[in-house]
């Protein structure tokens, strides 16, 4: 057991230091919110992810779609985190940070890109209504699927789109999260 090779292998040293790296092409952080842990990511100053998906999956997709230079660099997300926290406590109704739909397919981009113009704070819309507004009147189901794949949740308010029956149907962060967001917005416009 104490052969020369073993002794060489056991080389140990304490207080190892992790590297300090330059700014990443894609900077991300995990952020705890009242609706769950979210992965927030920016590239070139734009938000490319605000997601409930797991770290490995989302960063892997970002590496392929944007750049493999993806690093956990929380400070690059300071503004996004602050705006998100303000929104989630009812202190903010609109986001100033820009988004980039690098993780969305062309159809998802069509549905998501103008979502901020098609919805408004405190109000809901049905999948069918939204489908009609983007000139895809027969595509309510596909619109629902595209919203479900929203890579930039909350900032692009897919939570404001619900089923024709009034049911919340689905949300990437879970129905509880969707209910939380809609209640938050409703309360604010009733008693601002």
């Amino acid at each position, binding site marked *: 057991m*104490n052969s020369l090779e073993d*002794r*060489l292998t056991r080389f140990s040293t304490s207080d*190892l*230091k992790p590297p300090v790296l330059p700014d990443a092409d894609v900077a991300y952080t995990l952020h705890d919110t009242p609706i769950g842990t979210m992965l927030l990511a920016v590239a070139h100053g734009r938000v490319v992810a605000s997601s409930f998906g797991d770290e490995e999956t989302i960063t892997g997709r970002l590496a392929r*779609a*944007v750049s*493999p230079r*993806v690093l956990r660099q929380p400070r690059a997300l300071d503004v996004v985190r602050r705006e998100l926290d303000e929104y989630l406590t009812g202190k903010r109704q609109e986001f100033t940070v820009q988004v980039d739909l690098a993780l969305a397919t062309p159809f998802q981009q069509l549905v998501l890109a103008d979502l901020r113009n098609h919805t408004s704070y405190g109000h809901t819309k049905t999948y069918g209504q939204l489908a009609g507004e983007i000139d895809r009147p027969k595509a309510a189901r596909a619109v629902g699927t595209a919203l479900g794949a929203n890579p930039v949740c909350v900032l692009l308010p897919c939570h404001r789109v619900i089923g024709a029956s009034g049911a919340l149907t689905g949300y990437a962060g879970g129905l509880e999260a969707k209910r939380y967001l809609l209640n938050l917005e409703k309360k604010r416009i009733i008693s601002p």
Partner: protein
Amino acid sequence: MGMVTVGLPPFQALVDAHWRDVARLARALAGPVDGDDVAQRAWEKAFAAYPGLTSAKNLRSWLLTITARCATDVHRARRPQRPLDDAPPIAVDGPDAADWPDPDLWQAVNGLPERQRYAITLKYVGDLDHHGVAAALDTTPAASRRLVSDALATLRRTLGVTS
């Protein structure tokens, strides 16, 4: 976008998985003070070169190769400047291992010829196979095998151990 075709993992995954291995190897090769500098430089080089990689295979070996090259650069920079290019190279020992765990062993390792010292450190501290060692030293696996076995023979003699 769409430039990336080889499916490189996010760089953070490399950092998380390998930063301790890189730091350890850098310290074994360059000593406690220069080692941290070597590791930091190696990561900066790897980060700069990463998007240009054409294969996502053997990323750990790639990182340790960069680390070994950075250690060589630091080592060479420490060498006294020679007035004449054709003067014979001076033997430069590795770092002083007096304070290291197992100092007898590492003093002996650090007295080995440079290529042997690198080969044996890459093999056992870096846990690389002979292909990996050979890549880091820009040589063949057969040559790596020879460097390692010569180094082990010298160490056994120096330390008076039989295994």
